[in-house]
């Protein structure tokens, strides 16, 4: 071999043919491992072969390869851990499925929202684990992505009582064949609730404006009808026949009913300015309960109270009383036509952080799930025609919002309904005694 200038001396091992063959074979084997062709005798003569020590060179090179592999593995492990952390903490659900729709991997968010506790998911069908079905649905985006190799976006889909936006993207091999799909689901349940609340608020504002305008226009003529009918009843006490008197009384009664509806409309449209003051919520609750005492007794309904003392809110007492009156009346009316023993209403008041929370619950028939979202809509009623204007709960909702609070209902058909009113507690006010002992009672 020319060019390897320093190798000039004759190696004493040169006569050992067996050793030279061994070295040449081993070198050629190692070179084949490194992906290169064997040494030819014309490239490296025996003397140079022994002097160059190719086995030693390749061994040291392999040591460097091993070091590099170790470092690469370490970096890959760090990168994998980082990627796993991102995978698990990202705020969306991610699932990787193979071409048979079996789950290859999924992140913690996916498990939290769409997988039952302690369920093994790897290798299971995604439709079985995430959708609770035996086969994929017709509009499944993953099916389409696996079939077409194209990404699919679904604006909204309901899974396990939550709403999701889903994007599925294909995974392809080097030949461009689809080998699986990545499904990214964003939970939009809360967003939908906020949108629904905003829609509701807009609707209420529009209806409130309309109702307030109509109420104003009707108030004066209705007042005149009521006034003149009352005058006629008084002035013509002797001249009126029994039939005429009865008809006038109907006019007065109906005009009064009309006035009540108008007052309700004005309250709903909040055209009466609230007179805010610091009040003890229990005083209002007790006053409301006293007002309804007879009615509760007549209908055989037991009312229990559990009121933490010293709960102060900044509110208009007349309007807040109207809220509790409407809610308890709603519960009382829920029992109408119900033949059962143990009719009960409970009123509980307590502080929850910065909020004063009042819960009014009954064990009545409950509200069907499909109409529960509509109960705070104005003019929505399930009562027979003439029995209610459908304004009670919408007035409650309007008043509570006016007080920067919230109201919501939960119901189990056949079990009962619970309304929760939350009002902000004024900062720094603890209550009359600075204590919040629970005071229970019943009617």
């Amino acid at each position: 071999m020319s060019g390897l200038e320093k190798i000039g001396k004759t190696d004493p091992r040169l006569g050992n043919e067996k050793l030279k063959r061994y070295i040449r074979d081993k070198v050629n084997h190692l070179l084949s491992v490194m992906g290169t062709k064997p040494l030819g005798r014309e490239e490296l003569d025996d003397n140079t072969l022994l002097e160059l020590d190719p086995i030693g060179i390749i061994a040291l090179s392999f040591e460097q390869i091993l070091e590099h592999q170790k470092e690469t593995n370490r970096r890959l492990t760090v990168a994998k851990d980082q990627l796993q952390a991102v995978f698990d903490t990202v705020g969306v659900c991610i699932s990787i499925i193979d071409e048979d729709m079996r789950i290859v991997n999924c992140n913690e968010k996916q498990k939290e929202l769409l997988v039952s506790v302690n369920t093994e998911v790897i290798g299971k069908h995604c439709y079985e684990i995430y959708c609770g079905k035996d086969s994929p649905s017709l509009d499944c985006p993953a099916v389409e992505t696996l079939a077409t190799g194209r990404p699919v976006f679904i604006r909204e889909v309901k899974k396990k009582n939550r709403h999701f936006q889903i994007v599925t993207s294909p995974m392809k091999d080097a030949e461009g064949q689809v080998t699986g799909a990545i499904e990214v689901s964003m939970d939009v349940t809360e967003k939908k609730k906020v949108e629904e609340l905003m829609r509701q608020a807009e609707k209420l504002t529009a209806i409130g404006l309309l109702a307030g305008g109509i109420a104003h226009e009707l108030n004066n003529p209705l007042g005149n009808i009521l006034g003149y009918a009352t005058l006629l009843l008084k002035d013509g006490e002797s001249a009126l026949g029994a039939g005429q008197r009865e008809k006038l009384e109907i006019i007065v009664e109906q005009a009064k009913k009309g006035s009540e509806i108008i007052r309700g409309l004005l309250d709903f449209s909040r055209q009466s300015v609230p007179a805010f003051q610091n009040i003890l919520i229990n005083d209002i609750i007790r006053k409301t309960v006293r007002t309804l005492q007879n009615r509760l007794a007549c209908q055989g309904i037991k009312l229990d109270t559990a009121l933490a003392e010293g709960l102060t809110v900044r509110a208009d007492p007349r309007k807040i009383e109207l809220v509790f009156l409407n809610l308890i009346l709603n519960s009382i009316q829920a029992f109408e036509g119900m033949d059962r023993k143990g009719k009960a209403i409970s009123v509980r008041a307590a502080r929850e952080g910065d909020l004063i929370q009042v819960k009014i619950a009954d064990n009545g028939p409950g509200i069907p799930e499909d109409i529960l979202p509509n109960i705070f809509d104005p003019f929505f009623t399930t009562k027979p025609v003439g029995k209610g204007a459908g304004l009670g709960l919408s007035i409650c909702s309007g008043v509570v919002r006016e007080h920067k609070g919230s109201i919501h209902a939960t119901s189990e058909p056949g079990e009962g309904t619970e309304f929760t009113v939350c009002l902000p507690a004024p900062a720094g006010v603890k209550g009359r005694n600075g204590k919040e002992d629970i005071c229970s009672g019943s009617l």
Partner: protein
Amino acid sequence: MKKHTDAGKNIVLDIRGQICPACLMITLRELNSNKDKLKNEKARLVVKTDHRDATRTIPGAASAMGYSVSVLQRDRYYEITLEYGK
């Protein structure tokens, strides 16, 4: 074979006239003996070869050892630059 270190800390190995796998052997020997210098001092090994096969075998082996490789075709020879990491 000629070897020198240039002003920019590059180790220049001129193996024009050699053919593979001797080219690879000589390059590997330089990578081994200058390991610390190449890794810690950011020096580069520049191999000048006129054997086309060497532009395939040297980059393959050097990449597996963690070196980045660039091959330039000069007038009548190739210049293979090996740099650790990068």
